[in-house]
């Protein structure tokens, strides 16, 4: 309960201004395609040099929280996920927006983010020592199997057929092998120097999601002058709150899955939303509605990606191990102020750490309030004519890809992948499983390679990867997940015929 005594430090003028500024700024940065939470925090670090440690961390905490939630705005309205964490939000969120329910989708996503986020931060406050041990229990073999579970999810995601989903995932995993291999330093599929850095996830994300959209929008403007406008109907906020509570199952699944995945170092929040989306689909009696603008999809995905924020800081704060790229940047922000995370952190710097965590609690609430306020502007976005919108999205896509590392190569990669995706979509493939493959490929590969090397010095790979309770549990989940997808597809076919 110690955190309660440190709220005073958050309610000072400077802290509140930074918290509000960080939250609004974070929402805007998060909504800009290409500006991931990691980049937003990295951009803010130099500003914290000038601030006291407490204030610097409050700013970073607020920005981290709100950029993750802000990514939902472009995911819902433009079908461009602001960051990998928001991929799952596009699946139902954008479909809702197309039906004129953009405001409702945004409200649901911010309310779900609020609940997921608060739960995550409370886990951080109350269970940190326990969770830290848990995070360490995940060794290379376990992370490898976790990635395989992610691959199993691919099959049932968005595509009409399991096979096409898995094929999309394979394309993604193949794309991920391009460039220097990280451990041996060998070049793979580098046909042009521009590819030696591999396919950067952010430009790929933008290209795969935004470019097919842009092409369709331009094409429509050309061939069909009476383009149907998206309308956004006003949606009462109380209604949205009631709906989130009615969809308690999706909220619960999203929050729990997001918290668990956030905790595991090296997996990060990138896949939390997708795995939560998939799980809540499996638990839902209305499976068929997922992907058609179903509110459960948005709630599960957004509660999961904000629930992961708190637990992702557990390994960082207690063991000084950054579990995600964003946490790595935050670690830099802590060290620069002479604060070394570790088991004694909460005893040595209570006056810094508790206000930081408290500000993340308040930040969740502020994020929800300002987010819903932003949602009320959604109608204006929809009033932009499609041809103009296409140009704006294209501009954002180019800017977002370039901004990652100030490189035109990333822009070319974005455009090429986007053009490829436009044609793939014509054949029933979809972008989400492809991106998931792109994210999971390297996680599975590097953990397998490292685990294999360790196992060779011990009892061999079979023992290392296939024994132990945790390994077997994870393998079982993967098998059940694939089996379930196949079974439901087969039974759906039978029902149809």
């Amino acid at each position: 309960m110690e955190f309660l005594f440190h709220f005073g430090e958050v309610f000072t003028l400077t802290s509140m201004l930074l918290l509000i500024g960080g939250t609004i700024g974070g929402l805007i940065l998060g909504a800009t395609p290409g500006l991931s939470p990691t980049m937003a925090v990295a951009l803010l670090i130099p500003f914290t040099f000038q601030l006291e440690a407490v204030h610097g961390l409050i700013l970073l905490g607020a920005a981290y929280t709100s950029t993750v939630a802000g990514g939902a705005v472009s995911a819902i309205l433009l079908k461009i996920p602001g960051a990998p964490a928001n991929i799952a939000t596009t699946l139902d969120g954008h479909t809702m927006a197309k039906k004129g329910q953009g405001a409702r989708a945004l409200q649901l996503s911010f309310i779900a983010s609020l609940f997921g986020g608060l739960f995550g931060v409370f886990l951080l406050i109350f269970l940190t020592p326990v969770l830290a041990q848990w995070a360490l229990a995940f060794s290379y073999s376990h992370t490898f199997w976790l990635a395989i579970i992610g691959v199993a999810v691919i099959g049932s995601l968005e595509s009409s057929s399991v096979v096409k989903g898995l094929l999309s995932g394979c394309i993604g995993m193949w794309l991920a092998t391009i460039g220097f291999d990280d451990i041996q330093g060998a070049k793979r599929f580098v046909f042009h120097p521009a590819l030696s850095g591999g396919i950067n996830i952010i430009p790929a994300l933008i290209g795969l999601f935004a470019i097919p959209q842009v092409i369709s929008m331009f094409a429509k403007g050309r061939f069909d002058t009476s383009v149907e406008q998206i309308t956004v109907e006003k949606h009462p906020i109380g209604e949205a709150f009631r709906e989130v509570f009615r969809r308690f199952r999706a909220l619960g699944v999203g929050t729990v899955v997001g918290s668990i995945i956030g905790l595991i170092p090296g997996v990060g929040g990138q896949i939390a939303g997708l795995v939560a989306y998939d799980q809540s689909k499996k638990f839902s009696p209305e499976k068929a509605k997922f992907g058609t603008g179903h509110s459960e999809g948005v709630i599960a995905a957004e509660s999961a990606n904000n629930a992961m924020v708190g637990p992702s800081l557990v390994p960082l704060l207690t063991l000084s191990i950054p579990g995600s790229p964003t946490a790595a940047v935050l670690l830099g922000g802590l060290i620069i102020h002479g604060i070394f995370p570790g088991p004694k952190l909460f005893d040595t710097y209570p006056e810094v750490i508790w206000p930081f965590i408290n500000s993340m609690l308040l930040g969740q609430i502020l994020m929800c309030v300002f987010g819903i306020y932003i949602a009320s502007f959604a109608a204006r976005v929809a009033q932009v004519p499609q041809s103009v919108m296409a140009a704006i999205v294209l501009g954002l896509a180019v800017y977002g890809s370039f901004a990652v590392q100030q490189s035109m190569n990333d822009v070319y990669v974005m455009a090429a992948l986007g053009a490829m995706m436009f044609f793939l979509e014509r054949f029933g493939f979809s972008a989400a499983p492809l991106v998931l493959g792109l994210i999971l490929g390297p996680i599975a590969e590097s953990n397998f390679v490292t685990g294999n090397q360790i196992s060779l010095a011990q009892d061999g790979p079979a023992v290392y990867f296939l024994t132990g309770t945790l390994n077997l549990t994870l393998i079982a989940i993967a098998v059940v997940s694939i089996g379930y997808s196949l079974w439901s597809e087969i039974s759906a076919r039978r029902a149809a015929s």
Partner: protein
Amino acid sequence: MKKLLAALAISLMSFGGMAAADYPDRPVLLMVSYGAGGATDFQARIVTIPAGNEDQLGMPIAIINKPGAGGRVGWNWFATEAEADGYTLGAYNIPHFIAQSIKGGVDYSKDSFEPIANWGADPAVFIVGKDSAFNSMADVVAYAKENPGKLTFSGAGLFVGHHIAALQIEKAAGVKMAYIPTKGGGAAAMKAVIAGDVLGGVNNLSDAFRAREAGNIKILGVADLERNEFLPDVPTMKEQGLDVDNSSVNFRGIMVPKGTPQEIIDNLAAVVPKMFEHKRVKQRMKAGGSPLHIMTRDEVLAMWEARQKTLEELLAGL
């Protein structure tokens, strides 16, 4: 945002009409070939804080990260694509890029770059988990002798400082151990040690210092010529009878691509070491547990030369 705009402005500007006399007349980029949040990135951000001051470079330095494959991606880019006009600087890590160029498969070598100045020296240390039975390098060597190839120890990749230290330790002790390169830099290698995934590890002194402060690990030896001011109680490898010199010490500094005008190189070589001496840099580096080690261009040139020789010998057998 300011940085981003500055970077954007740079890339949009035309390259015509540049005179070395008014260098620099716009913000300067510093390419770091490791990810944001890593030790190199973090130190690069600290040592470039004073750049914008009038008595320093007079223009801010913005960091861009080009991470991947142990630094190969960034240095390849720097050697082949970066403009040699003094507005794109690069951070070097020795022995990493020299070792990689000796191993081959990259587009750079020691002669692709011109050093400006060195800011830091981070020796490699040998670490074990806090509950490990090993209390000295002698324990480690004894275990490795009894169990050849079974002693797993992590490090941040192949052909980086940690790997060099690992090779030197194995060679000096005449044992075979299992070096496990991890993906994700020193932090991932550290996690492996703390979690008990491996029996030991080689890591950066600065990170190991903080991890020991936090009570997570024990540090058994420093791979340097002398003990370090941050760890006065930890003996060097030499003191423990292992003939390991400072070849694996991670020297970090600033360089420019070959072909940069000589006046600009001279200008930078005069200004940059003073920037590293700035009191705010010293203060921040100390607070972060990062050893500052300032060297001028001539000293760095000699150091690169010497490293090239030792590394060629060490890596000849691989």
